[in-house]
């Protein structure tokens, strides 16, 4: 790592004004499991001059429920979510997603806001500077993508956004999308469906440079609802998902009345499976129907040579996650 200015923010307003003061050359740090890795490898063309610590701000570490739902402070760690009895009971898909993220050690430092704000993953984009220099790929504003002609076994199977095929690796993102969460920032409330945006260039979310996530609100599920999460990764204990899936289903009188299904690790943004959702409405959730929903989820897949295997994975994981909800 190189040197930078380090500030301990005393309040959210303080952090925002520090971000504004060091525009374009500053980052906020919460857990740091993504940021410290980026700093160590010097993956960006410009090195930040200021790092602003949010952990010194009081009141961002709270898990509480009230009438509108579950309020998760931005700095609540993934371990705290995974072990929270409140979350496990009503928002099982989210608790499971937090439990399956990375390893126990990283869950202890990684925060929920950091997990949804992490940068997309591609080994060319994140190529360390110390081994021959970092790569100026399209995601960093460069001319070409090295993954398309190169090794893209973990990359997007749903095409490109701005010529980039790096995938969003977050495990909690699909769970929050299935549960229809709202991300509260310093300036606005963003519905989670509109939060992820690889279209902005070299970032994964719609956040402005001086905007900070303060809280995530997950509404109470309707009576008769169930949610589930599944993940496929090389090593179960630690790796990023090759494909993961979260689903939330509401059943009334034996028939599905609402469904939200989201895949991640398959595209630049988490991908909602709206065709599969529409198929389920008004029908009883059976094995055959879940399989059909899985087929629909990958109907538009455009895999590359080395990641065709992910299509089969995505198809199966959607069906399996739906059946988890039915149990």
């Amino acid at each position, binding site marked *: 790592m190189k040197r*930078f*200015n*380090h500030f301990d923010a005393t309040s959210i307003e303080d952090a925002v004004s520090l971000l504004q003061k060091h525009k374009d050359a500053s980052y906020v740090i919460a857990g740091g499991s993504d940021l*410290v890795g980026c700093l160590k490898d010097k993956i960006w063309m410009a090195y930040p001059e200021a790092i602003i610590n949010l952990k010194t701000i009081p009141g961002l570490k709270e898990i509480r429920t009230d009438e509108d739902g579950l309020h998760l402070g931005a700095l609540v760690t993934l371990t705290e979510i995974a072990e929270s009895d409140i979350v496990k009971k009503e928002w099982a898909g989210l608790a499971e997603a937090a439990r399956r993220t990375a*390893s126990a*050690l990283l869950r*202890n430092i990684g925060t929920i806001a950091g997990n949804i704000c992490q940068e997309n993953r591609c080994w060319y984009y994140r190529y360390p500077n110390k081994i021959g220099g970092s790569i100026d790929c399209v995601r960093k504003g460069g001319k070409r993508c090295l993954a398309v002609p190169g090794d893209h076994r973990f990359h997007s199977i749903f095409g490109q956004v701005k010529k980039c095929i790096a995938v969003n690796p977050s495990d909690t993102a699909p769970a929050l999308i299935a549960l229809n969460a709202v991300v509260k920032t310093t300036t606005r409330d963003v519905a989670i469906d509109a939060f992820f945006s690889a279209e902005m260039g070299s970032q994964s979310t719609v956040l402005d440079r001086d905007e900070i996530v303060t809280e995530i609100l997950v509404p109470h599920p309707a009576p008769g609802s169930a949610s589930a999460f599944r993940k496929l990764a090389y090593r179960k*204990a*630690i790796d990023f998902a090759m494909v993961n899936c979260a689903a939330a289903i509401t059943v009334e009188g034996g028939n599905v009345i609402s469904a939200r299904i989201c895949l991640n690790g398959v595209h630049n943004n988490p991908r909602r499976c709206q065709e599969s959702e529409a198929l389920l409405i008004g029908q009883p959730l059976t094995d055959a129907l879940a399989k059909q929903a899985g087929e629909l989820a990958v109907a538009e897949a455009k895999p590359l040579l080395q990641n065709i295997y992910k299509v089969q994975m995505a198809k199966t994981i959607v069906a399996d996650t739906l059946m988890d909800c039915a149990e």
Partner: protein
Amino acid sequence: MIPAEQQTKLIKLTVNGETRALSVETHWTLSKVLRNECGHTGTKEACGEGACGSCTVLIDGVAVPACMVLAVEQEGKEIETIEGLSKGGTLHPIQEAWLEEYGAQCGFCSPGMIMSTKALLSKNPDPTVDEIKEAIGGNLCICNNYEHIINAVRSAAKKMAKEQGRG
């Protein structure tokens, strides 16, 4: 350019109950400071990206990879390293269990494994094999000695239960 006076910070770091004032550069990680400034070389650093767990230490009782946290952010926290386990030449029950069950082969992962085990047993004194696997999932052993390590954790749990009069 960053002014020279802002590149370093004076912090008070509490390691194994002993508080010391240190002048650290803002970009130094905790593992670097523990090894180079405090002389606690029991904390090993291998991958440097939080993926192997060999640098595991406890911060306020929670196991974290020391290579992924900045030292300047640890002021006022209780840090515990492998050096803090044995008291007056007597090994900690976890360390004894490691010896008896052959928990170490080359021994490089052992400090991290033992710190993860300590965090697990303080939260869950009687873990199942699955719970042990989940808790040490972030600690890699290059010798593939996992079978013995899991036995060592179970034996440590029994030893500690006996010591506290629960067994």
